[in-house]
């Protein structure tokens, strides 16, 4: 899949958001093309991998899909620490989930990777009749916080692939041009460097 001379980027990506907003459904739709109306709640976190080929680079995503219930909040740092990209998800038919999404953004800005690519995702766009959060509100919040905004529907697969392609492009753009593979997981980088230094 990787072309000769092409960059290979391995990126840790974390999905955050309130329970029932569709985090797992987004991941499943992207990785396996599946959608289950009654997707079982995620306990702790689930893991998915998928590879995207762009013209300028090949990106391998390590996707951590975290549990959305608020009490699992104390476990989230274990998963978002060192992530190259973060997707904060809310449900357009529920204002509470948007409030929770804003809190996640605040936490990521305080404790997360400052240089990560961040996306604010308004999911369940197929529930337009029940919309409670206007697109302009989400878009404005995203701009104010240095994120890009996208409306998606895991059910109809609208904008799901586009979301991950956009993240991949931004990751490729953020990297200095190097022919060899590069890991964006800072933990790996730090450990790798230390390992090499010590072994030298």
């Amino acid at each position, binding site marked *: 899949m990787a072309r000769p001379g092409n960059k290979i980027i391995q990126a840790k990506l974390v999905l955050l958001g309130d*329970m029932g907003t569709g985090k797992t459904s987004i991941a499943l739709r992207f990785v396996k093309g599946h959608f289950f109306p009654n997707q079982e709640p995620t*306990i702790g976190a*689930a893991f998915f991998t998928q590879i995207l080929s762009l013209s300028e680079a090949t990106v391998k995503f390590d996707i951590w899909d975290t549990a959305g*219930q608020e009490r699992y909040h104390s476990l989230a740092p274990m998963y978002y620490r060192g992530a190259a990209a973060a997707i904060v998800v809310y449900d357009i038919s529920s204002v509470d989930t948007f409030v929770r999404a804003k809190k996640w953004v605040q936490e990521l800005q305080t404790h997360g990777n400052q240089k990560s690519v961040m996306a604010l995702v308004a999911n369940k766009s197929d529930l337009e009749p029940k919309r409670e959060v206007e697109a302009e509100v989400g878009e404005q919040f995203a701009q104010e916080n240095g994120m890009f905004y996208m409306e998606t529907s895991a059910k109809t697969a609208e904008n799901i692939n586009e979301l991950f392609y956009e993240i991949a492009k931004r990751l490729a753009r953020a990297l200095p041009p190097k022919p060899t593979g590069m890991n964006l997981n800072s933990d790996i980088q*730090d450990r790798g460097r230390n390992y090499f230094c*010590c072994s030298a």
Partner: protein
Amino acid sequence: MKSNKTVNPLITFEHKRDAYGFTVRPQHLQRYREYANIYKEEEEERSDRWNSFLDRQAESSELATDGLVVGEGEKVLGDEAAGQEADTSSEKGVDGHEASNQVPGGSDSAAENGSQKEEVPPAEETKVHRVQLWTDIRSSLRTIEDMMSVRVKKKTGSVKDEQIIEAAKSPSHSDDVKSPKGAAFEEDSEEEFYDVERSDPSPDMPVVDGTNASANGITADAAPPEASFPWKEELEVLVRGGVPMALRGELWQAFVGVKARRVEKYYQDLLASENDSEIKTDQQSMESTDSNGKTGADFGCMPEKWKGVKGQIEKDLPRTFPGHPALDEDGRNALRRLLTAYARHNPSVGYCQAMNFFAGLLLLLMPEENAFWTLMGILDDYFDGYYSEEMIESQVDQLVFEELVRERFPKLANHLDYLGVQVAWVTGPWFLSIFVNMLPWESVLRVWDVLLFEGNRVMLFRTAVALMELYGPALVTTKDAGDAVTLLQSLAGSTFDSSQLVLTACMGYQNINETRLQQLRNKHRPAVIASIEERSKGLKAWKDSQGLASKLADMQVLGNLSRTESGSTNADEILISLTGEGEIDAVPDLQEQVVCLKVELCRLLEEKRSAILRAEELETALMEMVKQDNRRQLSAKVEQLDEEVAQLRQALADKQEQETAMLQVLMRVEQEQKVTEDARRFAEQDAAAQRYAAQVLQEKYEEATAALAEMEKRAVMAESMLEATLQYQSGQVKVLQSPRSSQSDSPVSRNNQEPDIPARRISLLSRPFGLGWRDRNKGKPTNEEPAEGNPSVEEQNTISEQDVNGLKVQDESRKEVSA
């Protein structure tokens, strides 16, 4: 709930669902089919073993029961329960619909009966209600239940102590809860109510504990001491081998000690308060004045939180084992009641995702109220502190498990560190879900059998370590974090050999026990608590920023006030037109207000900057801590590697020494080989020489034999010569006496011819003969002339003989020389 039981046997095996009705994922379908027959055979063996055990148990229990009046009482109660079941089944067959309608009425009658004596038989309606929700387990399992109930009593005592500690900690909890909220007055008032609600459980607990204690007391009196359970070890072996499907629900209840935990009407009261709240929302004030005032007060005090919990439960109902035939509308309603009742029972936990799976699983195996008490035992005792707001015990367990992995599988741990994988990423969800939806269902149930029997989380750790043992070799071959995690999850999800997993876990890790785990937990808990507090500080910083926003809002309010004042200023101006002094006074007030506002603004900005700086410092400290952690790990690795290098060098030196010694030995061996070869050559030469000597000796022997033959011939000839000589001498004597001289001459000539040949042959004998002849001649002087003539002939013979002898001697000497 019995309708669910009825549905269970009717489950038709679908190609995508297993024997329990759970979905089999497509990638595991083929493997499950391979194991389906194995499971069936194992199930039959299991049932046989358990049935024989229970039969023997029944015999021994009968013997034990003979000596106990209480035991007989229990038998009677069991019979009554059976009778009630019979009545209920018949009634339910007739009036299924009415039974459901009678649920509220049943609760009312139950409340009324609370004042009556226990001995009084309950009303018919109460029968329907109670039996519909609760069923005693079969009598053959009673003794097991009694044994396990002793443990419940002990644990209840420890739970009390923990609750006291929790009560002491409640202020800190309230502080933590306060920090994420703003400083609005409404929130303050809610916090006050929240504190009140926090304090409410403390008086409730002693009442409940007292009831449990009294119940446990009765059970303790009834139950014989553990010494009279000689079959406990056999039971443990059976449990590790798996509990039969038909007995699993009842045995799980026995293991958890459901009967000892149960308080009659407790579950119904929890549900009754829910029903009342639903039906009579407007009458909350009336509820507060009732005997259930506390429950009503709880609901009234925390409407938002309760709605949140209820909403979460409602969201997760259709997402619990979706499509499972037993969780139809009735099943889902039971699940809602069960989770709601538990949330009311334990407000500090409420509802946590994962509980829906536990509750759903239990509802598939037992009646609703039985499931409630089992769920309570699991969450309050086995997993205390796991699903609370901060999940402290869950995080502690992950640190403990990581230490165990590093101790047991250092290579695997190093490899995962190198890849940047944290074990807890994968094992955290394992523990929180108790492997539900993480392992195949047969394996999940086998693990739960042991876990519920043992009464603690030891089996959780052993199972996880066993999975690391089984799949560690494969993980060590992975080359990046994603592959490692994907492989581990995939392999775990395909662990269909449940017997291998459980036996590896139970038999292979005896030293992972409750005592050791407690020690490790005490070691790691402070770090978890510290990190949580640090995170809450971060939240405080965030709160400060929010506080800033609220203060800015207050400034806007002040702005409005200033506008109002400006209005009043206009009024003053009107007055000023009347009086000049008033106008002068107004201007300084506005200026002062502006100055004050500016000062406040500067202060707020400074606070914001300090908060930001604090956050940055914390982040920097965190990064440094992470680096330090890495450095420590790396330095430890370096030390280990140095030690390994030293060991390898020593080993190399030893091997070199061995090699030198081996070389020396080899040299010696080669020399010995050379010597041996030389010796062999010499031996060959000696052999050849000996052969030659043997040949020579053989020749000599042959020659000697030939010589001997010749000697014999000569001896014979010599004898004949001697005879001839004697005859000749006698002839000469006759010639001298008689005149016939011519006749005597002719025999002499004949004799002359013959003696030549014998003379050669008898050369050795001729010498003594010759000497004898000379002596005779000397004796006769008259015969001197003929005597001189004879010696000349003899001398010639002697010379010829000597020549012959000389030749022989020379031959012999030559032979000797050659030899």
